[in-house]
């Protein structure tokens, strides 16, 4: 005589096997329409026709990483049904903020550290060292100006003090304080706004007491060339620059902790953020999920080394992460 319990157990087993098979078939079709379960990869962005009534103008600052980020957000928003306009390559952080406040753009990706130092005038000794703390402080600062700072990216890309391997070997440089006493013989090249930034020349002067022989402002796009050409002894570059790996530059360690965290956070005008609501917030979080240190470096490499356009690379990111078809 069959034990009804065994039958039930068998049924249960068969049933769950069947469900598992069906479930994985759906996954194999690319997760169209599925919501994120734990363990399941990011699914494609949902197009919502109601978003078409909102136009978002996405801006960016004037270097590769910024343009890639701007394109990523713009294309993601477009996939979600928003109307998009782009105004990338605006200029430095002050220019971008001005454009945002004037309403010329609706959003752009800023860095938590940059915001704290350049916009909110936080003093060097009061800078938060934790990524989360830096983000919260930046968010509060932006909120006071009717700007919403969305959840930050996993990656952080700091200003870095870079020298060629040759210089580092010759002068025995590993940390920024190793430049003490030697700075008087060295020329520093940086972007025009570097002079007045606490996370650039100003900070190097105040925190490390470095007095360089000469500071020359140079276009941000040439920050690596001036090192390889031998014009500059020291240059300011970004952590995620792919040229660092190619040229074998040495990044001097920030032993006095001068640089704050620099996670990227999308800063948007409150009105537009409200129109987007929780759905937009989730969308940004979804997009940010894949932007790790390695990922951002890879994306920058595709533009700076492979010479693809930021638009192409942003599309590749969204597709390879399964966010877009």
């Amino acid at each position, binding site marked *: 005589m069959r034990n009804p319990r065994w039958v039930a157990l068998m049924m249960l087993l068969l049933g769950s096997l069947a469900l598992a098979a069906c479930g994985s078939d759906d996954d194999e079709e690319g997760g169209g329409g599925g919501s994120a379960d734990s363990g399941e990869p990011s699914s494609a962005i949902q197009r919502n026709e109601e978003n078409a009534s909102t136009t978002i103008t996405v801006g960016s600052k004037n270097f590769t990483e910024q343009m890639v980020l701007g394109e990523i957000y713009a294309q993601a928003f477009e996939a979600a049904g928003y109307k998009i306009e782009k105004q990338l390559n605006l200029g430095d952080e*002050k*220019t971008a903020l001005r454009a945002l406040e004037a309403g010329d753009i609706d959003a752009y990706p800023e860095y938590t550290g940059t915001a704290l130092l350049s916009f909110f005038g936080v003093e060097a000794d009061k800078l938060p060292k934790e990524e989360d703390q830096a983000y919260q402080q930046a968010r509060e600062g932006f909120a006071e100006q009717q700007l919403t700072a969305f959840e930050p990216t996993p990656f952080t890309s700091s200003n870095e003090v870079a020298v060629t391997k040759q210089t580092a070997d010759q002068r025995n440089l590993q940390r920024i304080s190793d430049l003490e006493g030697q700075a008087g013989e060295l020329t520093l090249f940086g972007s*025009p*706004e570097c002079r*007045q930034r606490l996370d650039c020349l100003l900070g190097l002067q105040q925190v490390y007491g470095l007095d360089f022989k000469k500071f020359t*402002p140079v276009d941000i796009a*040439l920050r690596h*060339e001036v090192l390889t050409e031998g014009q500059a002894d020291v240059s300011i570059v970004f952590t995620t620059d792919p040229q660092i790996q190619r040229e074998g530059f040495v990044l001097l360690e920030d032993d006095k902790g001068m640089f704050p965290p620099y996670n990227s956070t999308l800063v948007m005008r409150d009105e537009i953020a409200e129109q987007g609501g929780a759905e937009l917030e989730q969308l940004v979080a979804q997009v940010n999920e894949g932007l790790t240190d390695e990922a951002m470096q890879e994306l920058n490499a595709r533009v700076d080394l492979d010479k693809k356009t930021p638009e192409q690379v942003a599309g590749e990111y969204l597709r390879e992460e399964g966010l877009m078809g």
Partner: protein
Amino acid sequence: MNTTMAALGQFGDAIDFIFSERESPAGGTRVGGLAELWELMREHLELSLVSMAVACAISVPLGLWLGHTGKGGFLAINASNVGRAVPSLALIAFFVAYVGVGFTNLVLALVLLAVPPILTNAYTGVRQVDRDTVDAARGMGMTGAQIVRRVELPLALPLIFGGIRISAVNVVATATIAPLAGIVTLGDPIINVNTYGDEGRLAAAIVVALLAVATEVSLAGVQRAVTPRGLKLEASPPRRRLAFPIKRREATT
């Protein structure tokens, strides 16, 4: 009407930029004022003068020699045509990409830009000298070098200065985009408009225009000064096969 007032306003702001210092729109640093503009102009002039000096040192002797011996005419005349076809931005970019940034490299690029008009005009200037005059000098026992120095050069000077004038204006104009190669000239407010602001950019445009005009006018004056009085340039050989020589105004490019 409103656009006219707006435009006038912008020019007013630009003039103001030239004379008074102010906070940079990017914050933190001061821009504008006569001192800063003078510094930019100094760099601009230094770059231009060095380039012109080197270009003249190369092309005047070369052009004189080619003209005197009659060799290399094809090269000398077509140098200008080829040079004209290469855009200055492309030339600068080529040097930045292949040779590198910096003052010396930029001077090299500008010299390449400046040589063709001077070379062509020096060559043409010597060829224009009346053959009879040259023969007479040779008959007097002058050596080749003496003929060049004492006969051909003075008579070719107006054309040579015409070429120098053309090159100088070109070089001054091209030095405006020198910031692309890392040398901070008057073009910096135009290329890095964020640091200087829109009024800074317009101010720089005004100063560059005035500088170019001043270069042209002063070198035109020099050209007039070196033209011997009463010298009329006769074309030789005549352009059309007619019995009478034709008087023509000399086109310098």
